[in-house]
Structures are given as C-alpha cells and as structure tokens.
C-alpha cells in the first residue's frame, strides 16, 4: 500500500476515536482515561490467558506501555479495541514462549468423535436442556474457567476472543494474524474440547 493510499483510506471512527485523537494531539493527561476504559477487560483477558494474577497484571502493564509507545502510529484502520487486543495477545504469546511450558498439543477432530457405539448419544442430556439460569452456579462457573484454562494456548486465545470477548471471526483473525478459516477450525476444536469437559463434569455429578 502506498503512503497516499494509506492517507486516503477511511478512518474507523469507533467509540475511542476522539480519545485517541486527543492523546495523539498532545493531551497526554487523557491517557489514564484509556487505561480506565480497558484495564478491567484486559486484566480478565490476561487472567484467562496467563493463568495467574501476577502474570495477568504483567500483561496489562506491558500492553499499556506498548500502547503508550506505539499509539502515535495507530492509523485508525481498525477499531482501537482490536489493535489493543493484538498488542495484548502478542504479549501473552511472548510470555508463554519465555516460560517453561511443554510444547503445545494439537487438538484433532477425531478425538471428539465417539470411539464406539456405546458413546453415541441417543438423547439430549439434561444439562443441555435446562434453562441456563437454573443450571448456572459457582461450582459450574469454576468448572468452565478450569476447562478454558486446560485448553492449549492457541485454541484458548481463539475461544476467549470469539466467545468471551465477542470479536467476530474476521476481527479475531486480524488480531491473531491468522486466516478466517484457521480461526474457525481452532474455535470448533476448542468448543468441542470444552463440551467434552462439561459432559464429563455433568456425567460425574
């Protein structure tokens, strides 16, 4: 893309547009407003990705330092929130590479298929039929969080962005620098993985 094409490209005016413009025009005292707007969301994203509070705090801190450093280069070609999560996701991925976790395992579709005839369901289980508010309780919420934590990181990133943070497939692909098809594949496997964990939990209840 040429510099001229870049200049002529339509700017995305989202809810953060004015604030970003103010900061980039020299009103640095508005930066805390940006932090206030996103610290809660980023902290929870960090918690879901890093597993512990100290690492989540580091993620938030590093992300905002990077925002401060690179905000002047932000071209409004995407929503600010998408750009912010791109920085946060990249911080999480780098953090993991520095840690001593074992290599990530791949999830294959085959592992989510019934292994024998006895496993093929013949009726919808109660947990999938009950009203959601009757089903939810603290123990189940803990189980859901634990199941999300147990996903390999590359699948967890996608499901957290899509199903918890509410980004679209295209936005998630942009944040993670993946193709739309790749996001869809990872999301489906992540959901199947969580479904199996939940199924196990309800069967043993």
């Amino acid at each position, binding site marked *: 893309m040429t510099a001229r094409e870049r200049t002529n490209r339509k700017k995305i005016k989202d809810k953060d547009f004015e604030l970003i413009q103010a900061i980039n025009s020299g009103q640095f005292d508005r930066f805390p407003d940006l932090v206030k707007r996103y610290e809660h969301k980023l902290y929870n994203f960090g918690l879901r990705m890093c597993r512990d509070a100290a690492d989540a705090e580091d993620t938030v801190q590093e992300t905002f330092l990077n925002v401060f450093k690179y905000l002047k280069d932000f071209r409004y070609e995407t929503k600010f929130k998408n750009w912010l999560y791109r920085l946060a996701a990249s911080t999480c991925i780098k953090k993991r590479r520095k840690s001593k976790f074992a290599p990530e395992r791949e999830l294959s579709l085959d592992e989510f298929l*019934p292994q024998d005839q006895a496993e093929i*369901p013949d009726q919808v289980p109660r947990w999938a039929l009950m009203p959601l508010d009757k089903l939810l309780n603290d123990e189940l919420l803990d189980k859901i969080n634990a199941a999300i934590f147990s996903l390999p990181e590359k699948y967890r990133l996608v499901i957290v962005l899509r199903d918890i943070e509410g980004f679209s497939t295209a936005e998630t692909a942009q944040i993670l620098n993946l193709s739309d098809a790749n996001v*869809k594949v990872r999301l489906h496997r992540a959901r199947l993985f*969580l*479904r199996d964990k*939940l*199924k196990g939990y309800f069967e043993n209840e």
Partner: protein
Amino acid sequence: MNKDEHEHEHCLELFEKLSEYLDNELDEVTCKDIEKHIKECVPCFVCLQTLKRTVDLCKQSESKPVPKDFSKKLKKIIQEMPKSPPA
C-alpha cells in the same frame, strides 16, 4: 436414523461445520442441509445441542475485578511516564 447407522460420511462432514452453523457463518444451502439432517439424525442433533449449550456456558464465564493495589500501581506507572511518547 438409529444409533447403529450413525457411522455416516455425511454426519462427519456436517460435524465439522456445526460451529459455523451456530455462528450463522454458513451459506443457506448448507444451513438447510444441516437442518434437514438433524431432524433425522439424533446423535447429530444431540451434538449440536450440547455444542450450543457449551458456547452459552462459555459466554457466562465470570470476570474478576482488577485488584485495587494493581490499579493503583498502574496509575502510578502511567503518571510517571514521560509527558510525550518516545519518538
């Protein structure tokens, strides 16, 4: 379709697309194909329902408040940052 007839190519083909179906990301023809299939195939219907419930539950995942000490620390770091970003 009964349980014994479930080892079915078409089931496997649709199984791969169930998340896209739930997300309304499929074309009309494929959607209709899935809808027709799940009316006749109990295992696939169960699979779709449990997957849908999983997504609903995942969306309920609770968020935690930012620890007050960390919020204060972050505020302090920001206050101490230079008044203009690095060149």
